[in-house]
């Protein structure tokens, strides 16, 4: 028995062998296969090996028909889904209006926040400039230390200048 299972079918004839085992072969194909089988022990063995499978598999009954109740159940589900969709579509305009309102409000809020933060930045810059300006020395004003406080000091400064010129 073991010897029978050593060889396998020729790959180019497997489709025809399947036709043969399932009883769906005829005409030229049947002639071609039968001629090949005469000279090919491998294909003969392979065909014999699987010949039992249709009988074996057809012992089991096919799936039972689920009956008319199934179609009714499906239609009931379809109708209930339709009702849900219809209910949704009644509220749909309000819902979409609500979404639009929310979107507009969010946009307006975002613009306000952006504007607010921009003006704060501008104010901050102005303040900083004012502070910095307060610390810059006035080079055009005379040095208060160099301003004469009395007549004697004026005379002293004139004398110094004259001395320097000489």
């Amino acid at each position, binding site marked *: *028995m*073991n010897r029978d*299972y*050593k060889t*396998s*079918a020729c*790959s180019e004839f*497997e*489709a025809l*062998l*399947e*036709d043969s*085992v*399932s009883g*769906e072969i005829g005409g030229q194909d049947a002639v071609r296969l039968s001629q090949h089988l005469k000279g090919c022990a491998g294909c003969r063995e*392979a065909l014999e*090996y*699987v010949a*039992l*499978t*249709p*009988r*074996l*598999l*057809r*012992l*089991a*009954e*096919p*799936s*039972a*028909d*689920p009956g*008319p109740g*199934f*179609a*009714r*159940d*499906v*239609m009931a*589900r*379809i*109708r209930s*889904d339709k009702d849900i969709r219809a209910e949704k579509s009644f509220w749909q305009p309000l819902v979409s209006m609500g979404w639009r309102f929310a979107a507009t409000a969010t946009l307006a809020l975002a613009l306000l926040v952006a504007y607010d933060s921009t003006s704060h930045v501008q104010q901050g810059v102005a303040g900083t400039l004012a502070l910095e300006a307060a610390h810059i020395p006035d080079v055009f004003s005379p040095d208060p230390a160099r301003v004469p406080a009395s007549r004697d000091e004026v005379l002293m400064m004139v004398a110094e200048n004259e001395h320097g010129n000489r």
Partner: protein
Amino acid sequence: MPDVPKNVAASASSVAIPLARRTKGEEERALVRLAQNGTEAAFEELIRRHQQRVFALVGSILRRREDVEDVAQQVFLKVFVSIKRFDLRSAFSTWLYKITVNECWDYLRKKKVRPLVYEADLSEEQVSRLDGIVSADRPVTGASEQAEVKETLDWLLEKLPEQDQQLLILKEMEGFSVQELAEILDLNVNTVKVRLFRARSRLMDVYRRRTNPGTTVKADAARAERKS
């Protein structure tokens, strides 16, 4: 007009040829058109016509009875929602079965479950009874024997790769044609035939191993030959 309900036939008055004079294919196309125009009775009729095969297809992939009905319902809900987009270029059944296969894989992916796996081994009695039925070529009699045969076959099939199981169940148990299988699985007809033939051979390997445990089956012999 044996299979078409009166309300569907009445709705068909807008279509040029009455349903009664049509071939099965034309009749189905007329039903699809009516369903696309919103005739619920036409859609219900389409469900009735295809529910058994959809159940068979779902069952061949999921193998869990309790999930089969849920997934089959989901399939028809999807079909109802998208039937307006169906362009009638292929057969309605092909389109429906493709949706069914995709829905099954989606379901398995979402649930993160594998198709049913039989952990328990078969008893010697079960195996010898099945072998007796097959050898004697006698029909299965009675509900209990049918249930036992189904369990034994399920066990044998479960030992095969998933695609082999599916092909064998749909072809041999549920009566799908090779052409239909090729369309459903997006495969070439020849490829389906070759895969079916190899699946049969693998099934016989499992069957022989179980019925004659001492036997070296074809796969073992081929493996031994390759090694030597």
